[in-house]
């Protein structure tokens, strides 16, 4: 079965993104496919390479990256949500004349069309978060 996982929750603050990660892992371990990971709303912070948790804690963006690399997943971060929240790749950092960029390798910035495309092409689309 083809899944798309939509992550709306931020790292660390609440449980949604952690649950999304474990769900993604379970999907892949059961030999299903992930059509796309889509990070939207506060979920875009999961793609920040600047997340710096104490060493004995989970490093959320690092761990997503490992999963993305291991299974060659497509991980899309909504560009509009990301720019508003300060998650930028090199191109966007240059465009807005910012002093640095922080999009973790493995993730890509793209538009909401990719979310709709995923809704149209996946057998299941599962949303995690936000907290409320």
């Amino acid at each position: 079965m083809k899944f798309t996982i939509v992550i709306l929750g931020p790292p660390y603050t609440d449980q949604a993104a952690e649950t999304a990660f474990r769900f993604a892992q379970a999907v892949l371990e059961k030999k299903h496919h992930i059509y796309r990971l889509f990070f939207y709303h506060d979920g875009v912070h999961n793609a920040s390479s600047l997340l710096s948790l104490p060493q004995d804690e989970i490093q959320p963006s690092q761990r997503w990256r490992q999963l993305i690399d291991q299974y060659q997943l497509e991980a899309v971060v909504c560009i509009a949500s990301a720019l508003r929240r300060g998650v930028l790749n090199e191109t966007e950092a240059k465009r807005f004349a910012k002093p640095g960029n922080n999009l973790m390798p493995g993730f890509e910035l793209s538009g909401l069309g990719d979310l709709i495309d995923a809704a149209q092409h996946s057998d299941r689309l599962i949303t995690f978060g936000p907290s409320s």
Partner: protein
Amino acid sequence: MNDALPPSNQTQHSSDQDKPNTPITPNTRRILLVCRTAPYGNALARESLETALAAGAIGAKVAMLFLDEGVWQLAQHQKPQGIGRKNHSAMLGALPLYDIDTVLVDRDSLSKRCIDLAELGDFTQLIDSLQVKEVIADHDVILSF
């Protein structure tokens, strides 16, 4: 046309009342955006509208359902400038331009909040709580905000 179909398709056609009888292909998958948060105080409402317009722009079949605190998004005369936010209610008015013709509003959520029906734009349709379940069951993909 139906007569020409082989017998193996019979079972598929017997469930016509529940589902459209065309096979579900990517372009015919029906997407429902469920909007449950107030227009301001959190960016989620705005981002659900942006999703709706993006979906409409690429010709996806999209409906919206406003429930719970989400019904406040439909209130007229929003003035969020006082809290440092941009007014995004005009995006609602653009929905019909993006061919999003099904904008459903839960009647109970409105009455619990004493929102006057006159506040709603004429592009909306009121539904009862029982219909909410049907609408959710009737769509192929649910995006919840």
